[in-house]
Structures are given as structure tokens and as C-alpha cells.
């Protein structure tokens, strides 16, 4: 026991020293043992002589190990391990030149990390679980190469049932630790918007993009919400992907004017309040406090904007953002084809409904 502690200390100490030499360009691999006697990845690729840090995580319900063998030696190593098992050993790592690296048996929910230098010569180095009974089906191969891998469908080095699918690891994981339901809202990088973007997905598969930098609705789409996988899986360079079809885009310089001038009001975003998963945005246009809540229309694709303007002492004008839409407001007067005028009283609480014109343009 004491000796073991010393050994562990020494290993820790030495591995610290070694990181000095070893850290550069380490290939880090996380491999999982998953249910169905398989590894989640059946092919790994590392350059010759690369430092590899391989972590095996056992997410299965039974123990597994991992042995990397000399090229072509997988079945021999499996046989040797079986021999060990027969002799009553519970250590299934044979002492043999054919074994290059090994992670000993780990129990469910355990993980184990090893670091090693990949062989300097190119080749296909099998790996396999040698727990009795697993070796025949639970294997894969490390390609030590700088080149592309051969087609999976004809690769003899992976189990036959894994030659068609790259799918086991790609089963869509949940997005969040709660159900993926609508309405939903994300602050994220949206296309055709400023960098302080907001995406809101509503019931009825109507979604909209709101710009917190400019305090305005940017566009509305139908048929889905957004896909953030690319954005989340990278460093954030990839934008959110819109799922569906944009049918409304506000193409004005700014949709509201306060008073008679053409000046664009100064904007200040104040935040939002969530109610039943719908946001109500709060912002200032000049000194006027505005709230805006957007709900879907269900008959024809569209939205209803529920707005309040408080502290207004001049009239308010709203300018249509796109002409081939149907606009309806419960307050104010359309003073021409595109401009709605509201008195301060009318603007205290009003709605603007914008729907697709199903009769065509």
C-alpha cells in the first residue's frame, strides 16, 4: 500500500516533468465504451510519432478495457487474453510484444487516461476490448497516418455492423437538460442582424429575429426555429442557422419616428421580461419607454406586435417594413400607404399585426 502511494506520487511527479516535453501538439482522444459491445468510434487517426492522450470512458453497464496491438495482431491478442482468463486471471492484458498500449479493465462510469507516443511507422494498429467474449466484436483501429482514411464501407478493420454507419456517436444528443420546447429564446449571433441578436421561436413554427443593439424587429420566418449546433460546437464563429423561410424583413432605416421629423430616435435596450416563455422587450426611444411583446398569428403566417409607449408627448409614426404584407393596427390612422400615425394616447397600448398576403402581391 505504502509502496503504491509512493509509486503514484512518483508518477504524478514525473508526469509533471514530462509535460514539459510532451505537451506540444498532443492529440487528445476521448473514446467511449458504449452499450452493445462497441466503442463509440471505430476508427481513430493520428499522425506518426504524435503524442496521444487517450481517455477511455466506460458508459456501458459492463467492464471494458482497451488494448492497442501490432498491425494484424488483434485476433492473436484476443486469443492470448482468453488463455489468461482460462488460467483464472482477471487481468486480460497479455504480456506480449504484440500489445503496444493498454488501458486496464475499467468499471461502468469509470474513465482512464493514458499518454503515449504513436508508432513512428505508418500503419493500421487495431484496438480491442479483451474482456472475455468482447474481443470478437468490440474493436476498431488507429490509423497512424497523415493521409485520409479509406472508405468506411469496405474497411475490414472495423466490425461489419459499423461499416455503414458513422451514426452511433452522432445520435442527436439533447440540447439542454430540459425539454426542447417552444416558445424559446436565445441571445445569439443571427444572420442579417447586428451582433447583439435575439432569436425567438413561437408556437406555430413562426420565429423572429430581434436586434438588441438597434432595438427593433429584423425579420420573421416560418417553418421552424434555429439550429445552433454549429455555433455551439465551435468557438462561436458560425452563426445560428435559420430553419425555415424568411417571409418578412423590416427594410426601413428604423420603423418608428417620434414627432414630425425624420430623425431616427436614439435607442437604449433595457432588457426583457419572460412570461410563459414569451419575452417582453423593454427599450427606450429617445426618452420614451417602450415595451414590445410578439405573439404569432395562427390563421395565416404572421405576428402580432403588442406595443406600449409611455411618456410620449408627440405623435408616433410607424413605417411599414415590407410592402407585400398585410398590416393591421387596432389604433391610429394610416396616413398614407406605408405610415401609421398614433396620438400619444393611442400609442400607450396598441397592436400591429403583420401577416403574409396569401392572395399574392
Amino acid at each position, binding site marked *: 500500500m505504502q509502496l503504491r502511494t509512493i509509486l*503514484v506520487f*512518483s508518477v504524478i*511527479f514525473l508526469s509533471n516533468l514530462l509535460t514539459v516535453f510532451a505537451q506540444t501538439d498532443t492529440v487528445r482522444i476521448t473514446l467511449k465504451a458504449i452499450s452493445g459491445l462497441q466503442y463509440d468510434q471505430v476508427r481513430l487517426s493520428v499522425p506518426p510519432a504524435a503524442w496521444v492522450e487517450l481517455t477511455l470512458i466506460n458508459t456501458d453497464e459492463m467492464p471494458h478495457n482497451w488494448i492497442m496491438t501490432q498491425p494484424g495482431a488483434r485476433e492473436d491478442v484476443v486469443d492470448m487474453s482468453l488463455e489468461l482468463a482460462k488460467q483464472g486471471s482477471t487481468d486480460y492484458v497479455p504480456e506480449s510484444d504484440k500489445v503496444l498500449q493498454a488501458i486496464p479493465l475499467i468499471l461502468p462510469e469509470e474513465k*482512464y487516461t*493514458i499518454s503515449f507516443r504513436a508508432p513512428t511507422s505508418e500503419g493500421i494498429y487495431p484496438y480491442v476490448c479483451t474482456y472475455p467474449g468482447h474481443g470478437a466484436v468490440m474493436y476498431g483501429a488507429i490509423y497512424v497516418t497523415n493521409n485520409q482514411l479509406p472508405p468506411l464501407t469496405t474497411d475490414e478493420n472495423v466490425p461489419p455492423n459499423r461499416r455503414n454507419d458513422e451514426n452511433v456517436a452522432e445520435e442527436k444528443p439533447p440540447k439542454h*437538460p430540459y425539454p426542447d420546447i417552444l416558445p424559446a429564446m436565445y441571445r445569439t449571433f443571427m444572420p442579417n442582424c447586428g451582433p*447583439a441578436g435575439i432569436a425567438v421561436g413561437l408556437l406555430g413554427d413562426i420565429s423572429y429575429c430581434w436586434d438588441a443593439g438597434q432595438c427593433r424587429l429584423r425579420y420573421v420566418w416560418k417553418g421552424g426555429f434555429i439550429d445552433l449546433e454549429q455555433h*455551439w460546437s465551435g468557438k462561436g464563429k458560425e452563426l445560428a442557422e435559420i430553419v425555415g423561410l424568411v417571409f418578412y424583413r423590416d427594410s426601413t432605416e428604423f420603423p418608428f419616428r417620434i414627432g414630425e421629423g425624420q430623425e431616427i430616435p436614439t435607442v437604449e435596450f433595457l*432588457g426583457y421580461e419572460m412570461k410563459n416563455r414569451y419575452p417582453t422587450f423593454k427599450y427606450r426611444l429617445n426618452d420614451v419607454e417602450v415595451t414590445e411583446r410578439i405573439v404569432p398569428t395562427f390563421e395565416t403566417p404572421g405576428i402580432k406586435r403588442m406595443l406600449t409607449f409611455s411618456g410620449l408627448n408627440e405623435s408616433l409614426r410607424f413605417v411599414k417594413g415590407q410592402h407585400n404584407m398585410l398590416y393591421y393596427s387596432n389604433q391610429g390612422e394610416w396616413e398614407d400607404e406605408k405610415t401609421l400615425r398614433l396620438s400619444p394616447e393611442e400609442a400607450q397600448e396598441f397592436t400591429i399585426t403583420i401577416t403574409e398576403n396569401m392572395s399574392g402581391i
Partner: protein
Amino acid sequence: MKKHSLVIVVIIWIVAGCTLQPIEREAGMIDDQRIDNFYSVEDVPLPEGLTAEIGGMDFMPDGRMIVCFHRGEVMTYDPREKTWELFAEGLHDPLGILALNNWEVLVMQRPELTRLVDNDNDGEAEEYLVATDDFGISGNYHEFAYGPAYNGKDLYIALNCASKNAGIWDEVRGETNMLGEVAGMYSAVEYRGWVMKLREDGVLEPVASGFRSPDGIGFDLEGNLFVTDNQGDWLGTSTLYHVEEENFYGQISSLVWREGWNGDPEEMPVSTLDSMRTKAAVLFPHNIMSNSPTQPLVIPENSDFGPFAGQLLVGEMDFPRIVRVMLEKVNGKFQGACTSFIDSAGLSIGNHRMVFGPDGSLWVGKSAYVWVGDRGIQRIRYNGGIPMDVLRMNVIPEGFKLTFTRPVDRKMAEKPDNYRFSRYYYAYHQKYGSPRMDEQPVAVKQVQISEDGKEVLLTLAEMIPGYVYDLQIGQLSSMEGVNLKNRRLFYTLNELPTNQTALSSR
């Protein structure tokens, strides 16, 4: 027993060093390997479906931990019940959190510092209010925002520069200045590369410039502000800065946002830029100590966390390590040493955010993005006892004074060749990182040990300001035979003291 361990060390050294056999770094959940006697590491259970890349962690007064995650969730964790609850969602890459009370938290996300309020005490925030968004965002993916650090009065945040691997968007928020688009990381919108202060009256004002990727901001016990920065252009190696108002810390792009600034920083001579900058209090040697330092966190006074109260811990992304920093003021300026606080012993890599819990244990949140890292949360508990370690490393005019946590074994400690020093510096230049420059061994001329055996005074052949002094201690144990835990220390020698320092006569 000592003989044994030496033999084993040598054997492992030969095996590991010469034939490059596998080195065991981490042994999952095998219990006795996750404990290094004085501290033990355990994994915190997480809810199903959570991508546990942690941007910020704090504790609410009622004992719940509040954590924000890469995909925008903010969740609370009750350590007694081991239950997670959703507090807020939909935020953009939150990278910092501060609990104000049991119903209000501040979260730093890409576009703003946001105050989340749970008005009806149902455990879920209804209000998401802007605390400040008075800084630029260009849409460049690397413009992360960090903080807030709170000193009881003002809130401090740090703004990452943009990456040269992407441009800026046609539509940006805030003023632009393309003179800030220098080679390497750049600052094309206002206050990128700055540390900012949000005053109590809600005004966000610039504090200090010259940061590149300052993914760590925090205060020490005296209210001094420290920020870490990452090796890259203008950073030969990663740094810990003591941040004071109006200082410039070296990455040049942010200079364009200085009041009254005009001109192109790139056209200035490097020597001028060098003379303008405030040097790092501590350099973390790349590939040895730290490749990517994260949050600095002070160990509270009177904490039940071992002998290092008042010192800073710094998270590290690439190694299974938390770094410990020993600071002192020399000629009025902070400088000091770094070493490991914990290495491996069950700790994984990706150590991004840390917080002390009400019970005194240290909670460590992991992150990776697509850089080197990990996911999850680990908890480090102090098991009592005093590890054998260097408690303090102080500079003296002719060398260093090491103060140990326990009296040293004099036989081992008195040998000068048991202390291997080298010194080197890192170049200040536009190029990404710097090799160790002018690396030379430095001989230890004399070793003096204090009466109580805790202090060891090392007289060195030369002491040159501007160099990192890299110390490797050989076999050393305490009088009682406890082995020295961390044998490698790096002292950033910016200033040499002028007054004489002697061994204290305790």
C-alpha cells in the same frame, strides 16, 4: 522506504523518459489515486442533457451554487440535496456570474452584463435586465466578455480582443476604429482589450488597456485587482497582471481607445511600447507551468483549506492543474512566484472557473470550446494536515528566501545542488509567443537554514531583473519525512529589493 522510492523514481524516469512508455496521468474514479492525502477531488453529479462547459460559478447566500453554461443555461445546485434547477436560459456564451443575493445574479454574456431577477422566488428568473452594454461588439467570434469581479463597490469586466481568423461584421455595435486592426488579435470596436469598471451610478468607464484574451479577473483580500492573459502576440508567455487605472499591459491594439490617442500603434517602435507597458506580476512559463491560465481566485482568510490562505489560485486549461501564486510587493510593485497547487490526483484539464463553497471546499468548473479542455464540475476538499510545500518565495538582494510549511530535513535542505536554478526571459514582440530567451543555469552559492527549519535562504551567483527564475528542487522532505509536494517554482524577477533581508529569528 526512502531508498525504495528513489529507486522507483529512477526506474520510472528511465522507462518513461527513454522508451516513452505510457504515463498514467489520470485514473478516473479509482479512489485511492484521486487523493493526494491533503486534498481529494471528486466529480459533481450533473443533470442529463447538460453540456457542462462552465462559464461562471458562484454561491448564493442560501448555499445554492449558481452556474452558467456555454449554451446559455443558468442553473442552481443545492449541494445538500444534490439537485439542479434551471434559473435562466437563452444567454449568449455567458463567461462570468456573480450572485447578488438569493434572487438576483449578474451574468456576463457576449453582448452585455445582465441582471437576472427572480421576483417571485420560484427559483427561476423572470427579468433579464441590462446592467451595461456600453461596449462594442463587432460580431468577431473571439470578442468574449469576462467578469464581473466585485470589490464591494464597483464591478470590473474584461473584454477580449477580436481574432485575426475572422473579420468584423458589416453591422457592429459601438464605435469602430480600424487603426485597432493590428496584426494578431485586434481591437476594432471600442474598448476591446480593456478592463472596464461599472460604477455604482451605472456608468461604464475604461480602466486599463493592453489585454489580449483576459479570461480571468478577480481581487485579492486587500482589494487589488488581478487579471490573467494568454500567451500570444505581444505575450511571450501567459501572465498575471496587477491591474491599476490607466496602465497599459502590452497588447497594442487597444491603445487606439485611449483618450486623446491618435496614430497607429503598429508604427510605434517596440522599445517605446515596451517602456509604456506595465509588466506582468507573474509570468507562467509556457509548456511548463501553464498554457492557458483562467480565473484568479483568492483563498479566503480563515478558510479551512490548508496553509495557503490569502494566496491566489489560478485555473489552467491544458494541464490537470491548478496553479498557486505567491505575491509580494518589491519597490512598491507586485511580483512573485507560481507553482502547482494541485496536479492530476483526479483533477482533469479544462479548469476554467472556481469558487469556494460555504463549507470551504473548492468547486472547479471545466470548459473546452474547441480548444484543449474538459467538461463537468469537480470539487476539491481539504482533508486536513499540512502538506510539505513552499509557502512563500521571497526575493532578497542576493537570492531568494523559501519559507516552507513544515521544518525541512536539514540534511537534504542544506545541499546547494539540491536547488537547481535557471533563468530566462520572454521576448516582448508581435510574434505569437516567445521561446525562453538567454536561458542559463544559475549556481546556488550558499544555503542557510533558519533555526526553526522553515526558512531556507538561497544565495545565487547572479540576480538579474527582467528574468524568470526557474527553480527545481530535488529530493526534499520535512523533518518528519513528509515529501515536498511541488518542486518546481518560477519567480518573476521584475524588481530587486534594495534593503537587506535576513532570516527571521523565529
